């Protein structure tokens, strides 16, 4: 990638220079510095920093009556450990309509659907949890994918079909920036010896991902049905022979409803995760099928304070068969997983000072994760943010407990153009 960044920069520059000639084109973007410091000295990662990077994002858009194209390119100078420059095409797609009832969006893009706030049941599009945990902007939680998206409309009903030819996984802590719990090592690990990556599914046509959503408005209530065929987005399967983690096959069938009620917005969503490689639930190395559900409510408390509350639950199918196959002494995952989350957003000084708090707490795994950020917009172009990511866990093998040494605080400066 490095080799090409000069070329890409040149092409971007050419696009910038030629832009004024085209009537409906626009260039924008931002420059951002992010500096994060790990506050837990026990963290087994190679740097005390959690982030030290400068990012230039350039956005380019152009549209005519028939089509629209959009590009978002990030150049990042990162000296978390070894200084280096990288370029990432965050988005690069063309979008056009056909016959008034069909929209197509082809190329590298970010896709989101579902009703939850930072809880994703039927949204199986790739997420970057490393960015999320280290203080990058919210937009970096959603990772791009190369996909073909078709949206069909008929009255108040719409059907979305997304085909992603090459499976795109989540980005998860792998020991380099953030430590994690490694079951093979039996503890929290980090550093080069414990770099962790799953084996990707083979690049075959049948290993492409298909996501679909059928949605409809019933008055002010919006309902949706979902389908997904692909793989678990994190390497939760274990191949003992190869001693490698992999992404097991997955099918998901789900539904959601969202409605204004009691002066706020209420939502419920559910999904049945069909673990295709462990349909009997008796393979301890591949997750069992499960039923994932959540409910949430959000409303304004005062004219400048908004808060929400969510409850999420995961029920493991065939828990008995799972428990029976586990080796003696290994921690048994509960049949039910419970998670409570809450977000509070407060605006001060004519919305120029924004305080955001988000907490995850699981009573069943006895772990928690808190995000706090204070953002001040000094002018319309310059803003600064101070934030923190804090993890807590009674046990190392739980969702957030495994990240408990990754506590960090960060500072972020943004100049927008």
């Amino acid at each position, binding site marked *: 990638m490095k080799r090409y960044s000069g070329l890409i920069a040149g092409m971007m520059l050419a696009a910038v220079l030629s832009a004024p000639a085209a009537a409906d084109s626009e260039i924008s973007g931002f420059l951002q510095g992010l500096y994060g410091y790990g506050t837990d000295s026990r963290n087994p990662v190679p740097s005390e920093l959690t982030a030290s990077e400068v990012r230039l994002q350039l956005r380019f858009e152009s549209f005519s009556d028939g089509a629209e194209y959009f590009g978002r390119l990030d150049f990042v100078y990162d000296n978390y450990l070894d200084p280096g420059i990288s370029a990432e095409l965050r988005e690069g797609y063309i979008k056009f309509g056909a016959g008034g009832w069909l929209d197509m969006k082809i190329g590298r893009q970010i896709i989101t659907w579902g009703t939850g706030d930072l809880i994703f049941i039927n949204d199986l599009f790739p997420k970057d949890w490393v960015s999320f945990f280290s203080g990058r902007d*919210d937009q970096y939680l959603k990772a791009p994918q190369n996909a073909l998206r078709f949206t069909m409309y008929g009255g108040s009903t719409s059907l979305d079909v997304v085909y992603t030819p090459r499976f795109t996984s989540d980005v998860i802590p792998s020991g380099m920036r953030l430590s994690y719990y490694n079951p093979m090592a039996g503890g929290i690990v980090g550093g080069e010896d414990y770099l962790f990556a799953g084996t990707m599914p083979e690049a075959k046509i049948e290993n492409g991902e298909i996501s679909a959503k059928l949605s409809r408005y019933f008055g*002010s209530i919006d309902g949706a049905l979902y389908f997904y065929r692909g793989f678990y987005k994190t390497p939760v399967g274990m191949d003992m022979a190869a001693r490698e983690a992999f992404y097991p096959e997955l099918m998901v069938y789900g539904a959601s409803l969202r409605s204004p009620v009691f002066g*706020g917005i209420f939502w419920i969503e559910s999904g049945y995760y069909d673990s295709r490689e462990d349909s009997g639930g008796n393979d301890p190395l591949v997750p069992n099928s499960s039923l994932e559900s959540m409910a949430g409510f*959000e409303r*304004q408390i005062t004219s400048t304070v908004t808060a929400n509350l969510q409850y999420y639950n995961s029920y493991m199918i065939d828990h008995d068969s799972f428990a029976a196959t586990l080796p003696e002494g290994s921690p048994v995952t509960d049949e039910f997983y419970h998670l409570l989350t809450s977000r509070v957003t407060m605006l001060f000084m004519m919305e120029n000072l924004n305080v955001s708090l988000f907490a995850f707490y699981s009573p069943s795994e006895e772990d928690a994760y808190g995000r706090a950020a204070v953002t001040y*917009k000094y002018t319309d172009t310059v803003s600064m943010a101070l934030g923190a990511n804090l993890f807590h866990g009674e046990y190392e093998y739980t969702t957030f407990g495994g990240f408990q040494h990754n506590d960090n605080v960060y500072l972020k400066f943004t100049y927008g*153009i």
Partner: protein
Amino acid sequence: MKIGTIITAAAILFTSLPALAGDSEHDPEALMKESHMAMFYAADDGISEVEMKIVNSKGKERVRQFAMLRLDVEEGGKQMYYTYFRKPHDVSRLTFMVHKLPQENDSRWLYIPSVDLIKRISSDDKGSSFVGSDFTYEDVSGRHWTEDTHTFVREDEYNGRGVYVIESKPVEKYKGFTRKITLIDRENHLVLREEYYKKGDSPERVFTAEKVETIDGIATSTFRRMENLKKNQYTTVEFSDIRYDVGIDESVFTERSLKNPPREYIR
């Protein structure tokens, strides 16, 4: 709640009947309705570029730029709004949609393109600030005249224009104001000045129409100002490229347009 509103509406209707019969030109209810229609329901639809400047007590200025589409589904009733933000950079390309039903909570949607997220927004509090300005959501789309009781005060002159002066008080307890004085232009029924009182004899906020232009034959206040005397700051709004009766279809005000801005109207 709903029955209560109907009863109060009926009460207002009956109490204002003698006025209608006696002196129709000075019927405060009818005048407030006329001005509401002139301010917020001009033509059947409208498109405009908007520049908002928020100036704080230290003179520091923030600028918001957006394009706005409006469709009146029912004159004086249901309306739809669509907003496409251009500036500042952190909200550029963001879209916002409102389905407004008088006397009910609005339905509001926000689309954040960088994460492809459609968010439905709770809208209990119409007194919330619109994008951090001195205008509230209600100031932007109008407060329905039946939510207040009105009294005709006098005829007067304001900046060389003949005006009707009306005093209004909320039917139900309302935190936006306890009393409101409106100056309505006698000819075109536009609101030229509005003062919002909470306590005491001096207003907390004052709205003024700084510039009125005739566009497609319709008198339009193209430069508006809202001063917050309590906070010692103000916001100005300038409308440009205004077009009326463009023939915007209702299908523009859907999730599809949130994700795909209607380029036939928004460039």
